[in-house]
């Protein structure tokens, strides 16, 4: 009995150790979210709370592409950093010095191709570097030389009004990517290509077609233009062979009469599988389960954000969970094997779109836009958090989340859809949440208790990703150009450095020859949420740029 008990404890220790390891990066930063578990957590602790004050820049890299900012999460493999600029110029750099190893420039698409200029990163695998483009191609370069190997058209950008800004995700022998377009008359999807030859492996449409389960949640032909674009990067659990992805909002965004089935019971799922987290079979792209966070979304609340795969003990049982935030700031904790709902919590301090959530995750007191009226809704369509990612530290058990307090005045309209054109059907000017002096905060949330452990307020907005490390530090940056480190346990600011341009990117940590580095892309951006944010603070002049800034401890102090 004692032996078996010990054995059980031993097994528990192993499984929790595995769980602690699975999401942590080591010397490399191999995927967009760090690992395929998307924690944005580095197990490196050479830089820690006691020595972080000595952290200093060791190299910088100016990309020379100043069309937009540098948003890409750098990928680091075996001492080489791969980074892509807004206009798809790809660099392989010596990660210890910034020296250029190779450089590839994707041909500029014709001016008639619509879409925003921006790229959130490459993926590296199978000896190749993959990226998506503004003219909606998936491209593969040789990892060693930067030579073009293959490229394949994902969709006709001029027709669908969609393109690729997200980093792809390499899953075994395939490369997966989601696209934009969900605020237009478009039907979103995730596409998987074989890494070896670029051939189509599978495509999963967010909105089921006629005859498929879920199509009955759409009125008439509205499924053809119902949005749902999964415009960011998912996660992968190799043990379960499941890919997890968040899907976008339903379209039209602010007006639902043309897409929900007349007389539909609001308590039932509607407009599947928009504003949901889905689990897909990695080999076939078949849907295993879904969890819809915002049924019949009416606020442009995408669920497209990152999916964190975290093993935690919940109510006395070790669970394989998934943590996912909707744009509203409502954050779900699910069993990632079955999709079972385990809990939820809401991060913004100002919330008017619902009055609450039931114990089983149902929305209560929906404050819905109505034709002919204007209502104020908080948080705004820019999100309680934007696309920039949160981080998770298994040492503290906290999620680190940048939260913004903005509202918008929504006036819906009922224009008819036109394929590939904007289909938001509403005006939604943004404004700062009333009665406050600070409009954002970095929070530490415990996903198990749903409680906030600490919060560090900031007067403007926070739109850069979080990076957590085993040195109990949390790194991020702000629009004024300050790149900073917080104590992961207390939220106290323990270090900062003025990088010279606004921070809207995603920092990473890695090691080369035993030296730990922290690198961050910099440069404010001039379109979409960056411009919206700027318009809320007209006296501010957040600086543009496109520079990587990389920090380490001085050689002498290591």
């Amino acid at each position, binding site marked *: 009995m004692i032996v078996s008990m010990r054995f059980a404890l031993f097994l528990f220790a192993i499984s929790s150790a595995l769980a602690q390891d699975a999401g942590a990066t080591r010397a490399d930063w191999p995927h967009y979210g760090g690992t395929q578990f998307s924690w944005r957590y580095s197990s490196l602790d050479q830089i820690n709370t006691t020595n972080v004050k000595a952290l200093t820049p060791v190299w910088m890299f100016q990309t020379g592409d100043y069309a937009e900012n540098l948003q890409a999460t750098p990928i680091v493999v075996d001492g080489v950093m791969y980074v892509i600029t807004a206009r798809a110029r790809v660099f392989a750099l010596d990660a210890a010095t910034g020296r250029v190893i190779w450089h590839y420039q994707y041909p500029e698409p014709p001016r008639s191709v619509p879409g925003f200029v921006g790229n959130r990163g490459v993926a590296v695998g199978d000896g190749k570097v993959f990226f998506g483009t503004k003219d909606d191609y998936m491209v593969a370069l040789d990892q060693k030389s930067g030579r073009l*190997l293959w490229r394949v058209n994902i969709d006709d950008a001029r027709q669908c009004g969609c393109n690729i800004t997200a980093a792809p995700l390499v899953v075994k022998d395939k490369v997966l990517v989601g696209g934009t377009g969900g605020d237009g008359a478009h039907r979103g999807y995730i596409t998987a290509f074989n890494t070896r*030859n670029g051939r*189509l492996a599978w495509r999963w449409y967010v909105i089921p077609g006629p005859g498929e389960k879920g199509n009955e949640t759409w009125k008439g032909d509205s499924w053809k233009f119902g949005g749902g674009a999964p415009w960011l990067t998912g996660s992968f659990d190799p043990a379960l062979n499941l890919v997890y992805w968040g899907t976008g909002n339903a379209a039209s965004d602010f007006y639902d009469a043309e897409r929900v089935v007349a007389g539909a019971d609001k308590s039932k799922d509607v407009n599947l599988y928009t504003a949901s987290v889905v689990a897909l079979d990695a080999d076939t792209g078949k849907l295993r389960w879904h969890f819809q966070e915002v049924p019949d979304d009416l606020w442009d609340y995408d669920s497209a954000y990152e999916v964190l795969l975290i093993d935690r003990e919940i109510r006395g049982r070790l669970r394989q969970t998934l943590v996912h935030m909707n744009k509203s700031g409502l954050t779900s904790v699910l069993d990632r094997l079955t999709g079972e709902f385990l809990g939820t919590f809401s991060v913004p301090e100002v919330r008017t779109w619902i009055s609450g959530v039931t114990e089983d995750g149902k929305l209560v007191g929906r404050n819905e836009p109505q034709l002919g009226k204007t209502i104020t809704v908080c948080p705004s369509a820019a999100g309680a958090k934007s696309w920039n990612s949160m981080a998770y530290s298994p040492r503290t058990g906290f999620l680190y989340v940048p939260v913004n307090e903005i509202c918008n005045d929504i006036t819906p309209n009922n224009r008819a859809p036109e394929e590939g*054109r904007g289909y938001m059907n509403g*005006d939604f000017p943004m404004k700062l949440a009333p009665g406050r002096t600070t409009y954002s905060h970095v929070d530490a949330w415990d996903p198990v208790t749903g409680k906030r452990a600490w919060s560090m307020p900031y007067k403007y907005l926070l739109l850069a990703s979080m990076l957590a490390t085993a040195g109990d530090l949390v790194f991020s940056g702000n629009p004024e150009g300050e790149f900073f480190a917080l104590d992961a346990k207390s939220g106290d600011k323990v270090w900062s450095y003025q990088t010279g341009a606004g921070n809207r990117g995603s920092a990473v940590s890695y090691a080369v020859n035993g030296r730990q580095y922290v690198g961050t892309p910099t440069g404010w951006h*001039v379109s979409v949420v960056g411009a919206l944010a700027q318009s809320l603070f007209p006296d501010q002049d957040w600086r543009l740029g496109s520079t990587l800034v990389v920090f380490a401890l001085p050689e002498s102090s290591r």
Partner: protein
Amino acid sequence: MKKSALTAFMLAISCSAQNLTEVLEQGEQVFAKSCATGYCHGVKGGPGGAPRLVGRHFDQAFINGVVTRGVPDTGMPSFATKLSRPDLVAVVAYVATLNGVTNPNIGAAGAAATTSFRPRLTGEGARGARLFSEAVRGFGRCSTCHEVGDLGTSVAAPIAKVPASATELKSLGTPDVKTAMMDGESMPVLVLSEGKQSIVFYDLTAAPPVQRNAEPGSVKFTDGSNWRHSSVIKSYDDSELAAILTYLRAVVKP
């Protein structure tokens, strides 16, 4: 001034005023649909994800240039081929009024309101145009390999001759398609170039075609292939193919 001339003058004024009002209304609608969308310009030119357009002291020529040519390296595309000429003139005139231009030049926009940039298609031709690039067919649509007008991907050479019937369309022989041997695998390909640095071809094994860039010597081509046009247009029935041919006859210039 003689009375009749005055009447004619008044009539002309009221006509053009009427016309201007209509054009500006049209421009406002185009703006709402094409410019104040998504996270682009704000409603009525207010601030949004893209710059504010109201009260910027832009003159009409400047606005026309930006709308027509786009702004390099930004999200602002060229609308020259996206909007019909009357829509473009109308939206430029509308944005001009947001900048204090009280009587913007609308040229012949009113008179030209019925002429469209694209050929006007009706009936079978319109149905064919829709089918040619129908999104629900995924990669099984014509536009996966053919670019016609401003839609589609130009994998195949531009269509020069439109087949007479669906039967002819299905039996199309394509001598350009060869068989490549690469990494011990054989595949139907369309060769684009055979340079000293790289050999570029489309792998037609499955839709969508994949552009491959191979190192010289790593791939061998032989004439002929097992690729058939009939196998890639299977998503269409004969009636749909006939409609597509009607469309192509209307737009393909021999």
